């Protein structure tokens, strides 16, 4: 291609100028020491599991084994719950809120000080791009501890009446998509309210929770206040069904959520569940288009779409659907997929072979059911688990890809004609975790927020989180709220 330069002669400038490729800019993995094996964190110490079982955790970008991790059995869960009970009865329960706050502030500060280490470890274990672990996961984790540290001595003023009491021992089971952040969402409010915790991270991403356990040690948190037991489904089952657990909190799939609810039915245990989602991201014809495109990208391709509140259904007003998709496709062409440790990577690795298989299966069902698949030109690395950003058009409500949670970088595009139709389609899902609304009209934002059956409605943005803002679902997305004053209610006897 040529362009006319200022002297009026034709010059071939584009071939030279299009040569700008960003050189690799990897974050150093030496900032974190990954040990070859990890024990369980019980009663303030790292200990070997009773029966000596271990499992491997793998870097999803390379399939390299990162470490061997202890698998907690029933005896280990008994020990961890007993330690948490003792700490609750003897230390943490009787402690004043102001004293508890000191520990939480200390943890928050150490998370900040060791941010780079935590970010690299999270990226190694999870596969998410370093820019996300560095700019989102770790800063938010610190922010959660800071926020709830501030509440610890103000529970009287949280709107639950005078002197609200903690519940006791909390058994907390978290997913693999935001391992450190979910640990913080669970631990910070529980500890601020005066509970003690036994936390089970996901089996594919245990390392950052174990580093957080080390940070608890470093902060001199009294032994037993936080315990981390690693393992898979069996470990989680043993924890949530343990007789001496007073409160169960779970984030993960709706199927497992159901199982947990059955397990705690008829017991004294309190339960909060944060489950799946199939959020609608509704773009009206008067939306700020360039920002809406960014919001769509951030809604579904953030963290490879491994986000329970991902904007996996784009509802575009028909009058703008075509140009909006043109802009979106152009933008997706600039996404950079590859080495998650590279600071310029936008799309990292899929967390596990199992998840990749699920995404692949749902995507082929989309094609079989007649939706149109589009992917930008995108080279996938040879090793590791990867899936290119994918957009489905011509999607109908009845397609599986419009109904089931894919939990991957796959967007289903549907259209609507009127605001009423948008509301009906957005709500026509068993889930109800989040939704997005894009319009320059303020009154329409309020109208939509009122009518959408979703725990979070973002207006002209998507996937933004703040510790002061409650988060949680309607319908099969679960119940209970995390974050803010409301998040305290999940850990108080109210």
């Amino acid at each position: 291609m040529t362009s006319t330069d200022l002297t009026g002669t034709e010059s071939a400038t584009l071939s030279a100028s299009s040569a700008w490729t960003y050189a690799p800019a990897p974050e150093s993995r030496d900032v974190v020491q990954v040990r070859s094996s990890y024990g369980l964190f019980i009663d303030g110490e790292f200990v070997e599991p009773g029966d000596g079982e271990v499992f491997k955790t793998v870097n999803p970008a390379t399939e390299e084994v990162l470490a061997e991790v202890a698998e907690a059995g029933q005896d280990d869960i008994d020990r961890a719950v007993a330690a948490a009970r003792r700490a609750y009865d003897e230390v943490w329960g009787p402690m004043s809120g102001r004293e508890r706050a000191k520990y939480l502030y200390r943890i928050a500060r150490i998370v900040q000080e060791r941010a780079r280490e935590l970010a690299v470890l999270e990226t190694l274990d999870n596969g998410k791009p370093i820019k996300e672990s560095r700019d989102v996961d770790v800063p938010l984790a610190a922010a959660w501890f800071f926020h709830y540290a501030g509440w610890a001595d103000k529970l009287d003023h949280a709107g639950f009446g005078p002197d609200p009491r903690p519940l006791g021992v909390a058994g907390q089971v978290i997913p693999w998509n935001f391992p450190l952040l979910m640990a913080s969402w669970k631990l910070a409010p529980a500890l601020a309210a005066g509970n003690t915790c036994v936390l089970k991270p996901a089996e594919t991403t245990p390392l950052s929770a174990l580093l957080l356990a080390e940070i608890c040690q470093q902060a001199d948190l009294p032994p037993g206040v936080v315990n981390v037991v690693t393992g898979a489904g069996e470990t989680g089952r043993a924890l949530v069904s343990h007789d001496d657990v007073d409160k169960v909190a779970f984030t993960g799939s709706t199927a497992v959520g159901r199982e947990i609810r059955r397990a705690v039915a008829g017991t004294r245990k309190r339960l909060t569940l944060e489950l799946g989602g199939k959020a609608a991201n509704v773009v009206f014809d008067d939306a700020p288009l360039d920002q809406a495109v960014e919001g769509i990208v951030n809604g579904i391709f953030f963290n490879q779409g491994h986000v329970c509140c991902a904007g996996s259904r784009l509802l575009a007003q028909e009058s703008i659907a075509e140009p909006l998709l043109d802009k979106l496709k152009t933008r997706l062409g600039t996404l950079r997929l590859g080495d998650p440790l590279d600071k310029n990577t936008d799309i990292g690795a899929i967390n596990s072979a199992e998840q990749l298989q699920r995404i692949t299966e749902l995507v082929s069902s989309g094609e079989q059911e007649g939706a149109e698949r589009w992917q930008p030109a995108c080279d996938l690395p040879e090793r590791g688990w990867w899936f290119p950003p994918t957009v489905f058009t011509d999607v109908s409500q009845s397609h599986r890809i419009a109904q089931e949670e894919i939990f991957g970088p796959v967007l289903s595009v549907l259209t609507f004609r009127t605001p009423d139709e948008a509301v009906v389609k957005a709500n026509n899902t068993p889930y109800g975790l989040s939704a997005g609304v894009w319009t320059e009209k303020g009154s329409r934002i309020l109208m939509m927020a009122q009518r959408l059956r979703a725990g979070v409605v973002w207006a002209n943005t998507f996937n933004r989180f703040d510790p002061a803002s409650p988060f949680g679902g309607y319908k099969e997305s679960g119940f209970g709220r995390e974050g803010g004053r409301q998040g305290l209610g999940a850990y108080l006897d109210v």
Partner: protein
Amino acid sequence: MTTLLPSLPDLRTEPVSDAALRRLLHGLPGVDEVGAEQRAAALASRSIKRDAKLWALDLAIRVTDLTTLEGSDTSGKVRALCAKAIRPDPTDPETPSVAAVCVYPDMVPTAVEHTRGSDVRVASVATAFPSGRAALDVKLADTRSAVAAGAHEIDMVIDRGAFLSGRYGQVAEEIVAVKEACGDAHLKVILETGELSTLDNVRRASWLALAAGADFIKTSTGKVSPASTLPVILVMLQAVRDAADATGRRVGVKAAGGIRTAKDAIRYLVVVHETAGPEWLTPELFRIGASSLLNDLLMQREKQRTGRYAGPDHFTID
């Protein structure tokens, strides 16, 4: 490609009423400031290393309009600026020249004389720069005198007062008239985004200038704070990209004011690269107006080439 945008009238041939222009400009998709700022911040966090950085530093030099716009400017000052523009680093003949020198109209003859035989263009501000507060015939005379003295490029200012009071027709007519007065000289239209205040206004003013025939749209005079910012340049780049999609005509963008470090300059190049596209990474379609920036670019370039930082006294101050 379908476009959401209203068709762009050619205001050079079809004058349009204020009311019609208002419908056109206010019918453009809005700009969400929070979202635009987040996008600009995300692009600013790109990490440009090694070869990519060296390439960017050379490009940044090649797109620089080396500028002096002071009441205290003299022939001596402008002569020195021209020498620097042609050969920014006398110790390394491989260093590219800058795109242009940018001066006040009365300094154009000096600049033309001292850039003769080089590829460095001479740009002149005109139209009662920086405020633009003069009658149209004064602005046109200002423009013609700069062109007659040999300026290749004219940097005009829009009438921000007229724009803010909704007299879009007047703004457009002035751009059309100045463009005509430019003859063969290229016209850069300064929006003075610091005075337009909102990103919606930045997009509207960009469209107005595009429709009126600007060859470049430029952020600022450098005399108003804030001058160029990443969110502003992002919105202007989206405007020229949308216009190119709609009309096939590529218009340039110039960021001016407040860009002092190589790091800043590279951030701008990243925003250009990932917003308008790689086609815009050329002096024909992107410029940075700056003065002190050049020495930092040279210093970083030296560092990339040799692995060592040289002290500031190893780079000439002109």
